[in-house]
């Protein structure tokens, strides 16, 4: 059987592919060499920039107000690299890395240099980019070099559609304005992922403890993610004075918030929470019940033993375990009167564990 058309298509494709592959063979060779050369060139340039920077920092005038003649010459040398993107990138990262290793006036001089040679303008220009990653890099640079006067340009990015841009903008405000920077939370419409929270908390944890004076308003935020972030802040800074707001949050619509609240109330050992939760126990979901028994482990008294008794035969292993543990702690007499053997294997296992082991 002959298929002349198919055959000619096949052979045409073979020729095209063979040519493409031949090109790719040479391209691969060139690419690998190019990668090696580029890496070496970048290392050389980085070393060069480092040396220039050190020279620049040690060529300061006694007054330190204006650049010395030597510094002006060095500025010209820095500027030579500006038109090339990869050189700008290396310059920015080298400036930042070095600025973390120096202190005092030198940091200010370095920031002045960053502005003088035009890197600041490039960073601001990035904020006008259509590419989200370029905007995020721009904000990051401005944050790293502590440029406060661009805050008006950055405010709009707090609710940007890309979480990476939002995160950079939020970190900008926290890192540069400290406690005041938290005000962006008032206008935050976007969600905060767990990753965002980790980053923001890391910044917030750097604040001086006394700086956090008022978090209650954010515990009542309409944005659930803001509440969760603040709950983490409350726990980290031990803001027990927010107790009333926390007790209100036990009834919040969002399960995650309710669970987090119970966790924090447990951390603070707030016994009022126990009563509120016990009074609506039938409306609680399994996770909340487990959290409640966790709270009871810290706050229960003999009076609670009757309540706890209801859970020692629960189908859920963790509830049963926690209930028996609470009972053993608060009412040893009642616990000792319990049947030590039952048809429930899990019950026997827990009893055996509580009675005879010092394990985990």
């Amino acid at each position, binding site marked *: *059987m*002959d*298929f002349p058309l*198919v*055959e000619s298509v*096949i*052979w045409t*494709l*073979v020729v095209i*592919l*063979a040519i*493409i*592959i031949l090109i*790719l*063979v040479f391209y*691969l*060779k060139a*690419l*690998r060499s190019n*990668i*090696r050369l580029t890496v070496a060139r970048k290392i050389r340039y980085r070393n060069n920039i480092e040396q220039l920077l050190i020279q620049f920092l040690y060529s300061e005038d006694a007054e330190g107000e204006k650049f010395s003649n030597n510094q002006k010459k060095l500025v010209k040398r820095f500027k030579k690299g500006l038109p090339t993107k990869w050189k700008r990138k290396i310059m920015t990262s080298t400036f930042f890395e070095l600025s973390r290793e120096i202190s005092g006036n030198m940091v200010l001089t370095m920031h002045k240099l960053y502005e003088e040679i035009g890197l600041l303008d490039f960073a601001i220009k990035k904020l006008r980019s259509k590419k989200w*990653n370029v905007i*995020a*890099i721009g904000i*990051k640079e401005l944050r790293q070099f502590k440029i406060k006067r661009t805050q008006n340009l950055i405010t709009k990015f707090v609710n940007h559609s890309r*979480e*990476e841009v939002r995160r*950079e903008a939020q970190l900008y405000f926290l890192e540069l304005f400290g406690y005041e920077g938290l005000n962006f939370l008032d206008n935050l419409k976007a*969600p*905060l*992922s*767990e*990753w*965002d*929270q*980790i*980053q923001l*908390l*890391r910044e917030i*944890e750097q604040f001086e403890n006394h700086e956090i004076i008022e978090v209650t308003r954010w515990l009542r935020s309409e944005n659930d*993610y803001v509440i969760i972030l603040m709950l*983490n802040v409350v726990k*980290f800074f031990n803001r027990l004075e927010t107790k009333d707001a926390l007790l209100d949050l036990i009834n919040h619509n969002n399960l995650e918030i309710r669970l987090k609240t119970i966790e924090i109330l447990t951390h603070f050992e707030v016994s009022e929470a126990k009563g509120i939760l016990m009074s609506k126990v039938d409306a609680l979901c399994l996770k909340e019940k487990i959290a409640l028994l966790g709270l009871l482990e810290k706050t229960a008294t003999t009076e609670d033993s009757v309540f706890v008794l209801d859970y020692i035969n629960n189908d859920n*292993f*963790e509830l049963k*375990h926690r209930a028996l543990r609470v009972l053993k702690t608060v009412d040893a007499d009642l616990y000792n009167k319990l049947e030590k053997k039952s048809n429930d294997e*899990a019950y026997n*296992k*827990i009893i055996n*564990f509580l009675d*005879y*082991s*010092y*394990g*985990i």
Partner: protein
Amino acid sequence: MEFDQIIRNILLTFHYFFLVFTVLIVGSYIILAFFSSRETIDYLKKNSFVNHKDLLSSSIAPSISVIAPAYNECLNIVENVRSLLSTHYVNYDVIIVNDGSKDDSLERLIKAYDLERVEYLIDVKVPTQELREGVFKSKNPAFDKLIVVDKENGGKADALNCGINISQSKYLACIDVDCLLLEDSLQRMVKPFLEYTDRRVIASGGVIRIANSCKIENGKLLEVNFPDKWLERAQILEYLRSFLLGRMAWARLNGLLVISGAFGLFDKEIAIEVGGYDTKTVGEDMEIIVRMRKHMEEQNIKYRVAYIPDPLCWTEAPDDKKILISQRNRWTRGTIETLKMHKEIGLNPKYRLLGLLSFPYWFVFERMAPLIEVTGMLYFLFLVFYQQISWSFVLGLFLLAYLFSLLFSFVAIFTEEFTYHQYKKKGIGIKLLLTVFLEPLILHPLVLYAAMRGNFDYYFNKNKKWGVMVRKGLSKS
């Protein structure tokens, strides 16, 4: 209709069947290459200004249990555990499940890590084989992250289930004990679970890299080398193609059906809800992902199976044909078992992308492809026998198939060069090129043979389970 005409029609049907299949498979690879490049670029952009180390000092970093089943691993177990314990993460523990080893693995661990038996309250959420010696923890605070469980033999899936019962963490990192994890692997793997607010990430998988010939000391990868043996080289290329192209593309489409058993991170709550690993299949890594996805679809919860292209997990590939065939035979049986077990998903609109795209694709281009290829070969022999061959046509077709396979290998290599560029040394380029040209002739016939053996064993040798997987140990590479 005359007899000749009937034969001609049958032959024409075959012709068109193979033609359509070839066009579909090549077309799908082109589409996958496109999606994979989009996903890789996006990933690199997203992570270019992320500092994963922020997790290390975080008070809210989620907890992870690293579960590593071990069976007769006495040669390297102490070293491998040391490597796992040196992972850089703030909130994790390492659970080694000694799955009824007949050697002295447990004794070596007890001695090396100063272990003592402890009482441990286990909530058996997934049924497993009984414990043998019990649960061990170290007396030395330096190893307080280590938990060793000794149980009766039940296979890898059973051992992982035992680890799930022991774990008290939010996430489970299920790994092969002989894999080498880079220090920041948990930081990177857990990130997808933390960054979505509109959907739940149920699992994340990572690229598996081949560590044969690499320089490894004290459980740390010091130098990436390209092996001398062609079989190992060919597998490196195959892994690059599979992980950097195929799986990245499916991750983009949120249609991943498999996360390698060598290293995967799971949401423990969902893993338990679906009943843990299935102990009846040899493809437990694929099966649990399919079951978890099916569960999420049935619950109508938005979810994602994430994928990380960073080279985080390095493992030893077989350097022997027999072991390679045994390994691929098992993979084939695992695929068949999983697809058969969940056949109701296929073409079922209820399961949306999973039922209408991932599952059928896997069935046609993974499960059926070797069978179709062999049928094609037999058909070709038939034509040769009856002298129905246009040799120019055949030669063109073979060349075309060969060149397409080269093209996709090149795409994988360029992806590697533009992104991670792990094979930096001078001279590796030419070896890579040679591998590209020889791999279809060296590895593909073996893989095809193993797949056919897998099919045969699945239908006619039901008792066959894991098969032999002899490892030399990474530290000796």
